[in-house]
């Protein structure tokens, strides 16, 4: 028996080690990205949630203006993913700090920073889950959903909690604030309309699928897709469905809404142009890769400022990505720009540039010209670093 155990010990130890490694590989840790970078462009500045830092870049050339924290190795403020909200002299962001050790602990924090310097003004530590998507900012209120199932409304000036609204599951979607109403979708398969002032529910709209993105409002109609392979148009006043469009896969990203057309992309990489009034399909475009690799689309499409182009970011194969510029008239691909790194973040358009964040890429941010996809600048500038 002694001999047998001697022979078994290495096998058992290897098994346990492999189990630990295998589970670590799938559970994720601080070193592995668990989400994608959020980008916001306001005026001539880009605000990027660059994992260990919030980085403010000059939108025209990618030069860093300030970052928070300045030195993450010395002053760890956690991992930043959500798109910063900018307004009222504040940049409001959220991060997750994980303390190591035997009883590892997670702390999820919303930070209020000075828009000019990045100096910390306040922090809110009242939520117990992760912040997955960005928040929405009105004049004096910042509203954000959390993995603990709550929607939190904070005073943008002080960071004090104004109210919270509990849903039945994680809230990953960015809220939409219009006048005195907050519209927010939850993984509990409800879209809620709440009073901005006190969080009281006005109505809720129930579907079979989870909501992971913000609705878009146009002419008193909310447009939003869900994980039940269905895209919805809902009366913003009453929460009554106006029409629905069924596809063959989830809608994760927010739609883009033009004058009379709503553009939405499902995760299988099919882009739909739908009549905003009736939901009738105007055209559809299946995004394809020249090398026939699988395409999947997480982020919603974004319109150019003149409304003639539609930008769609995609994951190509397992690790790469591409940005596609489609003609809004018929879905024809005007240009595409492949990238090393997946394009899962929603692209941002400002004037003549379209910005994309790349997951697992050498560059983390790229600015491309809207006309032809020409690369204008990258961050980090690898050549400069070398």
């Amino acid at each position, binding site marked *: 028996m002694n001999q047998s155990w001697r*022979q*078994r010990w290495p*096998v058992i130890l290897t098994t346990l080690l492999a189990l630990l490694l295998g589970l670590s590989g799938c559970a994720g840790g601080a070193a592995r990205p668990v989400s994608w970078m959020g980008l916001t462009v306001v005026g001539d500045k880009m605000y990027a949630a660059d994992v260990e830092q919030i980085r403010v870049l000059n939108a025209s050339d990618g030069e860093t203006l300030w970052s928070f924290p300045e030195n993450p190795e010395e002053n760890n403020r956690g991992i930043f993913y959500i798109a910063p909200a900018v307004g009222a002299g504040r940049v409001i962001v959220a991060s997750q700090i994980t303390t190591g050790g035997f009883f590892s602990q997670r702390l999820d924090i919303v930070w209020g920073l000075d828009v000019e310097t990045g100096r910390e003004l306040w922090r809110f530590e009242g939520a117990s889950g992760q912040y997955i998507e960005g928040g929405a900012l009105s004049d004096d209120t910042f509203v954000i959903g959390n993995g603990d199932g709550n929607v939190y409304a904070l005073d943008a000036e002080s960071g004090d909690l104004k109210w919270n609204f509990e849903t039945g599951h994680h809230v990953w979607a960015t809220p939409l604030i219009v006048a005195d109403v907050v519209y927010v979708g939850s993984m509990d*398969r409800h879209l809620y309309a709440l009073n901005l002032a006190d969080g009281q529910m006005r109505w809720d709209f129930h579907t079979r699928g989870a909501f992971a993105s913000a609705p878009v409002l146009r002419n008193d109609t909310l447009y939003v897709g869900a994980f039940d*392979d269905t895209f919805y148009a809902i009366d913003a006043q009453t929460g009554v469905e106006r029409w629905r469009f069924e596809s063959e896969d989830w809608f994760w990203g927010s739609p883009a809404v033009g004058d009379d057309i709503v553009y939405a992309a499902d995760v*299988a990489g099919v882009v739909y142009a739908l009549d905003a009034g009736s939901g009738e399909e105007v055209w559809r475009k299946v995004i394809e890769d020249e090398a026939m690799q699988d395409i999947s689309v*997480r982020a919603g499409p974004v319109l150019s400022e003149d409304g003639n182009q539609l930008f769609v970011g995609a994951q190509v194969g397992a690790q790469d990505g591409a940005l596609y510029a489609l003609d809004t008239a018929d879905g024809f691909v005007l240009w595409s720009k492949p990238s090393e790194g997946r394009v899962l973040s929603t692209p941002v358009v400002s004037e003549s540039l379209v910005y994309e964040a790349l997951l697992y890429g050498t560059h983390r941010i790229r600015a491309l010209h809207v006309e032809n996809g020409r690369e204008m600048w990258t961050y980090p500038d690898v050549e400069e670093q070398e």
Partner: protein
Amino acid sequence: MLDFIIYPFANLLLLLYSVLGHQTVAAIAALTILIRLLILPLTLGQQKSARKMQELQPEIEKLQKKYGNDKERLSQEQMKLWREAGVNPVGGCLPLLIQLPIMIALYRAIIFCVPSTPLELFQFSQHIAIDQWLPGLVGLVPLQSTFLGMDLGQPPSPDQIWSYALPILVFATSWLQQKLLTPSTAPSGGEQSQAAMMNQQMQIMMPLMFGFIALQYATGLSIYFIISNLVSVVQFYLIQSRNGEEKSKTQTRSKKQSDRKSS
């Protein structure tokens, strides 16, 4: 690497979730039991090997007494004995190694369906097949992730202090399973007591290790560990009672034969 097992498990979990009234813990329990049934031949092989090794124990002790000082000879004789008895000394560990990827795949399937990070969910979104076959099951993901106030996709946390009960239960059930499944070694002098000590260490080390894993990873994994351990315990008693019945039948038969001979 294990995608070919993970995605079918995840889809099966979705199916069970829809059948069992949208109860995530019930679906995890059902999937665990189902998988344990699938790997039953492996588990039985492991237990059979352990039992045979236990039966050979007196022979091994004799060999140890006989060749105590000649390690090489002792090893040769032991190998010979095992070969003749048709026992592979590491045979009991191989099923454990085969179960390992299954355990990892099951954990990943749980994490995909009760997602804690958007990247995991996005990865899984392209591999949900069950709603293609059964359109009524569309929109199942993400599964209800709260159980007794705990988030099944997150590790135990001080906010829900009771969530630490799960690693304790994982430890307790692993210890019970380990105690039942590890062959007992009669304490005697020298190397034999060393083996007994090793067994004792294993009985504590393995459960501690699993308890530690439960502390660090999503509570959904703890549910799997606990149910899996309990299934092993039940399985052990079922096999024991079956072996007991067989043994008594054999004894009765040989007694009858010897009675007949003597008469």
